[in-house]
């Protein structure tokens, strides 16, 4: 049976209030369209997981989707702050948000541990850093063989992982390339996987070592050309750097942000009845 689906159907069927949802893509292939669909469907109390929250989580947090954020670098890449994320952490707006803050390396270890079915991942990290003192999800263990003190972080096993890829075939096998980030890891870590793709093709023609997710590990494939914009899809379109610069101004002010989201994401729909 094919896993091809429309994006609204996939989000409606597989993302539920209170879920732990990871949207991955390291600067490249960020699943913006899927994030916007979650915002439009007004999903609430989500635990949002992403190494680099980027503009997509800034939008989701600002629109009230998040209860908790698991992340490692929360800036606007090449620009500065994520103002909606900062407003939530500094001023509890639109509501307080819990944060579980790790490092990039620790996030990748949390994903690979989950993908490998392990309860935790280990790394040589956090020695001398204050992060461990402020995050109960960072602990230390002694290597049973050498006695070396190592950091341990719990596996992250999201209810749903959402990624964007260049192509899928009609059977729903997915192929991505370029900067592949942690997409394979998070897909295999999660209970369900939604993939948006630029293009559906007859045959992937993927080389044998390519980054391919077989259809049987992917819950839903949605054909969404441009679904990573304003980030980029290698071989399809470039990153819209001017958008990231402009976002700084749009997101700085609460009303400005709301107006922009209504016009560009909510499609004129009222937010919480507040037209």
């Amino acid at each position, binding site marked *: 049976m094919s896993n091809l689906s429309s994006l609204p159907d996939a989000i409606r069927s597989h993302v539920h209030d209170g879920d732990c949802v990871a949207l991955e893509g390291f600067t490249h292939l960020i699943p913006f369209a899927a994030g916007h669909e979650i915002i439009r469907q007004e999903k609430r109390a989500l635990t949002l997981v992403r190494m680099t929250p980027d503009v997509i989580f800034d939008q989701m947090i600002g629109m009230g989707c998040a209860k908790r954020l698991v992340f490692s670098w929360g800036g606007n890449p*090449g620009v500065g702050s994520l103002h909606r994320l900062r407003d939530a952490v500094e001023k509890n707006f639109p509501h307080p948000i819990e944060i579980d803050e790790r*490092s990039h*390396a620790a996030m990748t270890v949390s994903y690979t541990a989950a993908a490998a079915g392990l309860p935790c991942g280990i790394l040589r990290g956090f020695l001398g850093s204050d992060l461990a003192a402020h995050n109960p999800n960072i602990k230390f263990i002694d290597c049973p063989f050498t006695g070396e003190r190592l950091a341990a972080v719990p596996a992250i096993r999201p209810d749903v992982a959402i990624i964007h890829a260049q192509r899928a075939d009609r059977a729903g096998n997915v192929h991505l390339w370029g*900067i592949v980030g942690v997409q394979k890891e998070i897909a295999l870590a999660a209970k369900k996987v939604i993939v948006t793709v630029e293009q559906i093709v007859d045959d992937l023609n993927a080389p044998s070592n390519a980054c391919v997710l077989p259809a049987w590990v992917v819950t839903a494939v949605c054909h969404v050309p441009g679904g990573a914009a304003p980030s980029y899809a290698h071989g399809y379109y470039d990153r819209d*750097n001017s958008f990231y610069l402009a976002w700084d101004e749009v997101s700085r002010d609460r009303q400005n942000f709301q107006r922009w989201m209504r016009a560009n994401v909510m499609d004129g729909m009222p937010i919480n009845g507040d037209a």
Partner: protein
Amino acid sequence: MVATPSEVMTIVAARMLREATVCFVGIGIPSKAANLARLTHAPNAVLIYESGTIGTRPSVLPLSIGDGELAMTADTVVSTSEVFSYWLQGGRVEVGFLGAAQVDRYANLNSTVIGNYKSPKVRLPGAGGAPEIAAQAKETLIIINHDRRKLVEKVDFITSAGYLDGGDSRERAGLKTGGPTAVITDLCVLRPESLTRELVVTQLHPGITRQMVAEATGWEVRFAEDLIETEVPSDVELSTLRELERQTILAHSNEAADRTPFIRTDPTEEVARP
């Protein structure tokens, strides 16, 4: 040609990168300095970005850590988990190039919060790859603009360990690598003193006085006995840097002008790259 303070900082940082060094690079000034080194005295320097691009030779500076330019000019592109596990933690990186919001007298770095962690005055972006770069590269170079809010007695939050409380406290905490060897600012270079590990000024940039540095530093900064003056940037260094910046601005503004988001190239061609 006369260099601006920021250009001097970038050029001095670039000079510290030895030929053929394997360098883990952060975005911004570290990336600019590393690429300047590659285009001048260190053509075989190996640049690794945390997006998994290894041995990359961008023709213009990336605006984000995951720009396509980095992937297209790399020897190989690996997953983010692999770049941190096999390449960084595996001990392949000689120099880590880092920036931060604050650095203190023992070269600890803060990129997490200003103020209290639970209710911060300013929430900064956070750790990213820095804690492990600081812990796992054989040495680190730190680049930061020099002012009292940035060079502080004690950072509000240690995101990435330098020499912690000084002396042998870094080693006692279990960190096995060398740690920061220089802090390069737009005024001077500071290096850790051998026993105390306190940062002392070892080099003043052209036209900069001890008083200017003292006033811009958040602790009573000391000066090395053999304090030297930074060699004036050469015409080659300066023109290469300016050309790199000019090309970068040009490339990124052309991208914006040519924005036709959904033009497709033949994906099979991309896939076929060896």
